[in-house]
């Protein structure tokens, strides 16, 4: 009498078609190509933190060297009137204190502050 267990065990497994091997090889090549064979490089968080701290420190060190633009003088800065003739009717002298950088006067023209340059 035949033992079915032994009979099945002795039966060889079927040989897969060659096309399956080719398809699997192609799928693996495609996957390898898609992923470039390695993980994408990632910048660690500590590098971001170190970069931020370095920029802050450099900014703090160089800030006295930077010539910041002086704010325009306001009416409260003006002491004494030196401009004899009003240049135009719609111009109003705000003050006589010259801008330290520009050596010019600031006027208000139609609600807008403008520097008064020589020759105007």
């Amino acid at each position, binding site marked *: 009498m035949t033992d079915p267990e032994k009979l099945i065990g002795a039966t060889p497994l*079927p040989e*897969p078609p060659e096309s399956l091997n080719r398809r699997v090889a192609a799928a693996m090549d495609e996957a390898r190509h898609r992923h470039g064979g390695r993980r994408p490089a990632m910048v660690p968080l500590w590098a971001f933190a170190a970069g931020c701290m370095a920029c802050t420190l450099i900014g703090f060190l160089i800030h006295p060297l930077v010539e910041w633009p002086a704010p325009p003088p306001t009416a409260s800065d003006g002491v004494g009137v030196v401009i004899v003739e009003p240049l135009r009717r719609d111009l109003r002298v705000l003050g006589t204190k010259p801008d330290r950088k520009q050596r010019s006067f600031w006027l208000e023209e139609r609600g807008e502050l403008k520097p008064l340059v020589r020759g105007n």
Partner: protein
Amino acid sequence: MSTDFFDQVRRCYVENHRGLFGYALSLTRNRAAAEDAVHAVICRLLDRGTIPSEPRPYLYRAVRNAAVDTWRRGASREEPLFDGGAGSGPDPELRLQLEACLFRLDTDQREVILLKAWQGLTFREIGEVRGQPANSAASLYRRGLHKLKALLEEKER
């Protein structure tokens, strides 16, 4: 994904491709459908990006799912299961008898018998593949084998 991963996938395929193909063939009874099922499983493993801790039950379970999908789409021409490896194993006539008897068994019993006796999976692995306890797989195997023996004896007479 590292090169190591692709080497592991290749190793998984080389070690299991005959078993997986045989299992898929036993479920679909069609070589083209079985080939599609195994191919789909390897593609899924590549997309997954990691090798499971126990690759064999994972691969067999995935082949089972893929084969069931193929079967649901509509059965195609049925092809013989035990036709490979001419010159080794039982003689062709006995193989045909065995195959005929196997396909007279209940589907679950046949599947478990083939996974155990043909593919060499353990009952624990079969349980993982089929989503059932190992004892249930063992019980199906014993009952199926008993019935198969009776069918073969009937043919011999």
